[in-house]
């Protein structure tokens, strides 16, 4: 891979990883979704988990979705640069599936309850 290709791959991965390290948007959402309770709690409480910041939470999830999606696509575009094709495809497909999952989280997070 060229240096530029590595940078782009890093940027796409960072779109997912950096928010996750800072605020765990996906981790928190999955953790809360998995709780079958009337009082879900966050894995890591931060400003994103506040009620009025759910819009921001959604946007970050969308950003992470695109980060994963672009990463998967870019890996496939660069497939010839990798020696072990099997590992490459397993990783790319896994990231793609993860991106779809994050897209679904975005869908759920962007609902606005107007009771």
């Amino acid at each position, binding site marked *: 891979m060229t240096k530029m290709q590595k940078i782009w791959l890093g940027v796409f991965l960072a779109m997912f990883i950096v928010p996750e390290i800072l605020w765990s948007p996906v981790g*928190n*959402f999955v953790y*809360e*979704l998995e709780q079958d*309770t*009337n*009082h*879900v709690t*966050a894995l890591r409480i931060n400003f994103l*988990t*506040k*009620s*009025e910041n*759910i*819009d921001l*939470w*959604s946007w970050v999830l969308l950003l992470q979705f695109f980060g994963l999606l672009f990463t998967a696509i870019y890996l496939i575009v660069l497939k010839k640069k990798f020696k072990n094709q099997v590992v490459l495809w397993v990783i790319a497909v896994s990231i793609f599936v993860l991106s779809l999952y994050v897209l*679904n989280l975005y*869908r*759920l*997070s*962007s*609902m*606005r*309850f*107007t*009771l």
Partner: protein
Amino acid sequence: MKKLLYFVVSLLVFIPSNSFAAMGGGGGGGGGIPPPFQNNCYFNYWLQNDDNIFQDYQSKEYVNGLLRIHLKVNGNQAGYSNINHYLVLYDSNCNEYFYYADLSLDPVLNIPPNVSDISLRFVSPTHFQVWNDSTNQILDCLQCDVDLVSYGFPSGLRASFRLQISDYVNHMWDWVNSEGFFVEDPNFQQKNPVLIIPGTLGTEMWKGSEKLWPDVERMTSLTHSSDAFMDPLAFKSDGTPLDTSLRLGEVVGKPRPEFDYAESFIQDLQSLGYENNKNLILFPYDWRDDIAKNANIFLKQKIDDILASSAFSKIDVVAHSQGGLLIKRLLFDRPDYQSKINKLVFVGTPNLGAPKSAKMLLYGDSLGIEKWRIGLDPQEMKKLSKNMPAVYQMLPSRSYFDHNEGYLSALVHGTKVTYPDYQQSIVGLKNPLYGLNSNLLDSAGIFHSENFDNMDFSGTGIGVYNIIGCETATIGKVLANDGGSELDLEYVAGDGTVPITSASNINGANNFFVLSNKDIHGTMLTQTSVSQKIINILTNKTSSVIGITSNPALCVYKGNKISVHSPVNLDIYDELGAHVGLNDNGSFEQDIEGVQYDILGHEKFAFLPSGHIYTVKLSATNNGTFNFYSEKIEATTVQSTAYYNSVPITSTSTAELVLNADNNQTINFTSDSRIISPSAILDSDQSQDLTPPVSTSTIVGLMGTTGFYRSNATVTLSSIDSVIPGRESQTSGVLSMQYSLDGGGFQVYADMSPIIIIDEGQHAIKFYSTDRAGNREPEQTIEFVIDKTPPELIIQFSPKLKDLEFTATDTLPSIITKDVLTNTKPFKVPSIKFKDSNSIITATDAAGNTIQLTLKDKDRKRLLKAEIKSLSYNGQAVEVSKNKLNFVWSFDKKDNLNFLLQNVQSKKNFNILATYNGKKTTLIGKDAKEHIFKSINGLVILKATTNKGDLSWSY
């Protein structure tokens, strides 16, 4: 650095020493231990103690802001005859008040031998008890539970305490004294029990172990297909639950990461020391049921229970949405409960109702639990709400009309009308077409009496606070559609569900407005600003909260309401490309904060709050035309309206427009480069025009009988926009008239260019006009017939009548073969009318066309002969000098026809003479083909016919 050090040292030097003491105050209230009061008030001459029976004063604490003094007994009470206790109280001027146990009562203070730890506990500022700390039970003695007020002590005193044992016989005694402390913790923030009453849908509903509400996972899962699992939530038509086995769960907390109804608010309260089920109580209730029933039975009982288990005589209440109506109802019906409420905080309460309830009943609502067409089905909510009393009780009330024009429009005889008052609105909703519950509509009217809606809290002694959303587009008017017209929604300022005029209608309340244009109603309690404001209210803090104001003038409700009326999709983009609208796959996306988007049928509506540059994209879904509106709204008033009337499109048309500050943007077609300017731009007054114009038609022509014309018809249309007296400025004026001839397409009617109809036959013209505000009058239809052709006569001799017989033919039945509008059988053409005055025979058709044949002799029946004298059509004589029409006849004595002469001649000299002699008929003459000479046995009757001014014959 040196300067900083000097500054710190100087501060320390100049801080008075007693300030440190003051800084250390507080106990159970969380602020440290308050100091004893000043020595000159202190009961200091009883400090000695031999530690024989009593140890020194141990400690004191504040619990719920009230003093507890702990003392220790050594247990060696043998030989002593009396134990009593004193309470010494001081007012602010150090005046002393003594309470001491009545020695005449035995036992005055019964301390069991094995009890070592006792305490004096104030349960109110004027009420104390003596407790066994080991068992945490009140001691069993007559003087261990004392109401000081009944002894004449004022409240607000400070206290020290003395416990004394004495033996008056042997002159022995021992005692222990506490220092003097404030009975009430000066640093204590009073924490009355707080009762939280949630709103509609704010309580879990269960059927056995199955959660019916809110099971968001089932509603939103990708495999979601139906919301029918919620069907047991429905009510019967008599307003009672369909399934009585359902049970209430908890108040909805935070069941989902994206939906925090009350959880973080409760956590905020807990962080201040409130404890669940102790002084923080939630009130789950059946939000579907009658509000008065929930209030007067269940809420009342809840308050009783709280106070029965609390040292406090009052509670604080935080009521969200429908919860506000519950507590208000209870306090209205039971004024004696007003003294049990200390503070009452209303949050987004629909005091006068909310038009969104009407929308729920008429169209249903997904409650925002929907994304990309996966989620709660609006029709399910419509079905469930149909018989729920509470939903009806949240319809706008009578008093709503004191502050609003009306919330419901409907089509009355094809015209959109806003019901101007409560009663008409209810009658409108009772239209069987909507299938609503009439009984519940009536009972909702009884629930919202004028006195209830305008209840004044001023004299109740309750601190009433009202938190109101004021910047969010909120449904303010719904069109009850019975088909055929454009649907409509109108938005007003509010919190997304409750209009500001409804939420703010609490007399005697301190109003606070939430400065947010988000749809916050459902999560109002957990908005940081709202939560903080409520906590400030409960804890007597007056500090301001960012995002909350008491000045309604700071509310900014500003933006554009746009709507498109079929067959077009509406997509909205902000300057960053965020999108609201339907995706290519038909799913719905809502990514711009504050944008309100509603779809009713094929109509789309959106409110776009100011602060963004919006691009609106339109894409056709079919051939036809669409109407587009852009209303610029500031401070709840429509400043201007841009109206685009009947823009033609094909199914592939696409267009976009960028909303301008002056609202005169053009629709730019990207598919065919057309640029469409607004058909009309209205000012603020004209934008209020809700009344359609009225068109009239005039037909000019030679009129026969009603509905028939004997000439070309010229149809002139005219229209005027209706003016409501007193609201003349709200008349926008006529924009255009459209007409359709004989079932063809509509076209614009141009002034000074009347419609001229030449063709004979039946005709129909449909027409309507539209004003510049887009109000369209219902279609009118005029039908008429043009028949320019008079009938023709058939003249024959009738042996039976022994006279000439006249019949007629008319073209009308042949030109009216089918109805021009319905394409069905034509109307029945009226028969031709005859008038035979012996010498003048007149035939008149349905249109009034006449043919008149005049004979030379006036008495043909006596003379037994007839000869044409003249012939006229519609009064216009035609030349008949070249024609012949003669009949002569006679009878024998037996009255049998023995002679008949029939002679007809056309203008072209074709003629025939038929002579009958009683046996045979001789025919002589010529026609266009040949000469005629025939002799035929028997009688031959000629059939003479008028034909456009000439004569013809046949036999």
